[in-house]
């Protein structure tokens, strides 16, 4: 039995197989509408979430399975002091797969240790959010058909952004990639994560989106949150450097893709939405297909063929 707790839980071959299956599902949706018939997914969200919860629920429903769960822990027996280990044991006897989000770091791993069914981490505090990484990678695969020899620009809050940390870790497993970290000096990408990079990934820092956008194959935008800055003046002085608009898009490569984990605030101007290079809504859609593929893989991990039913 397999779980997905952190982005690097799967080997590169397993990831290839997962993305291939997601692509098949996307192009043959009707072939999968009964793939999980009779199966139940427990969706345990101990923290509010819109995107991720709906994406998972929709994924399971599109596979013909059922969904039980909650998105407000105050209505559950966790309020009565039930341990997470007991919750996992109990839910595993009702459902065939568990998807969980928690503000507590490591909570999905604790559940996995006590569950007799696969557990998927849908976000544990600032720790991991592996299915966001899968959605991001799926988008890159879909648009560029490779994960190597690409120039990635990560822009915005790179210090606290869990999404970019996980994505960098996942992409640095592939060869020949170059990463440009575009952020104010206060929000720079953590050095200790760069030190862990593999496969000779090249890394450079930039304090201006304008100065580096022309080199990029993928631009990954993240939110720059006001409260991260030491002062209002600092925020006002720096925020415009990290806003993507039509003018900056004009300087970018013709086939650059713009990604964003959403929700956005003002760092991604709505005028970019109509640009064919904007990929963030596609990214959200592909996230659902990769979650469908993930559910199937966790049910029948050893199935050699990319079968259309489990």
């Amino acid at each position, binding site marked *: 039995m397999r779980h997905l707790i952190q982005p690097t839980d799967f080997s590169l071959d397993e990831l290839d197989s997962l993305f291939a299956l997601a692509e098949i599902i996307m192009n043959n949706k009707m072939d999968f509408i009964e793939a999980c018939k009779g199966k139940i997914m427990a969706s345990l969200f101990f923290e509010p979430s819109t995107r991720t919860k709906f994406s998972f629920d929709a994924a399971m429903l599109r596979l013909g399975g059922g969904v039980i769960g909650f998105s407000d822990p105050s209505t559950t027996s966790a309020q009565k002091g039930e341990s997470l280990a007991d919750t996992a044991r109990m839910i595993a006897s009702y459902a065939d797969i568990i998807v969980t989000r*928690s503000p*507590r770091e*490591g909570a999905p*791993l*604790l559940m996995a240790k006590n569950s007799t069914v696969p557990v998927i981490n849908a976000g544990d505090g600032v720790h991991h959010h592996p299915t966001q990484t899968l959605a991001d990678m799926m988008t890159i695969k879909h648009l560029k058909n490779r994960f190597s020899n690409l120039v990635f620009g990560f822009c915005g809050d790179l210090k606290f952004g869990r999404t970019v940390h996980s994505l960098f870790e996942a992409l640095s497993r592939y060869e020949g990639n170059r990463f440009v970290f575009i952020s104010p000096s206060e929000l720079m990408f953590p050095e200790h994560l760069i030190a862990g990079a593999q496969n000779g990934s090249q890394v450079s820092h930039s304090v201006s989106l304008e100065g580096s956008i022309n080199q990029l194959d993928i631009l990954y935008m993240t939110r720059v949150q006001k409260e991260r800055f030491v002062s209002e003046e600092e925020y006002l002085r720096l925020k415009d450097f990290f806003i993507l608009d039509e003018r900056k898009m004009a300087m970018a490569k013709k086939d650059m893709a713009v990604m964003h984990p959403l929700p956005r605030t003002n760092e991604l101007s709505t005028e970019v939405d109509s640009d064919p290079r904007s990929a963030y809504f596609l990214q959200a859609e592909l996230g659902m297909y990769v979650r469908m593929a993930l559910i199937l893989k966790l049910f029948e991990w050893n199935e050699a063929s990319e079968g259309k039913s489990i």
Partner: protein
Amino acid sequence: MIKVAEIKDGIVIDHICEGKGYKIFSQLGLDKLDCVAVLLRNVTSVKMGKKDLIKVETLEKIDLTVLGLIDPGVTINYIVDSKNIKKEKLQLPAKVDGILECKNPRCVCATEKIDIVSFNLADKEKGTYSCEFCGSITSL
């Protein structure tokens, strides 16, 4: 100077940093053994100035994993029939169960009752470990 008789069969844990002997003695659970177990503190050492030393007269296997964590500089001498048959320098264990404590207040182990939390070696040079649940770094 106190003289302690040589042991016939057992182990001698030598070159323990001054003051760490008692911690090792308790962590290894030597106080719970029936056999002769001696802790010597502040022994004069040419190399170290002062050192602690432990002698245990037993043929039973003692799990020494924790030793590398508390004091990686120690030497273990295995004695059989009054002969020193093997001298071993220690390394930091790749994985430690319990002993360490995760200091991250957001970690699930801070609120849930978990019997044993495991830690994986994060940095050999610094002797740091990462919590299996939240990945945060800690050391003894």
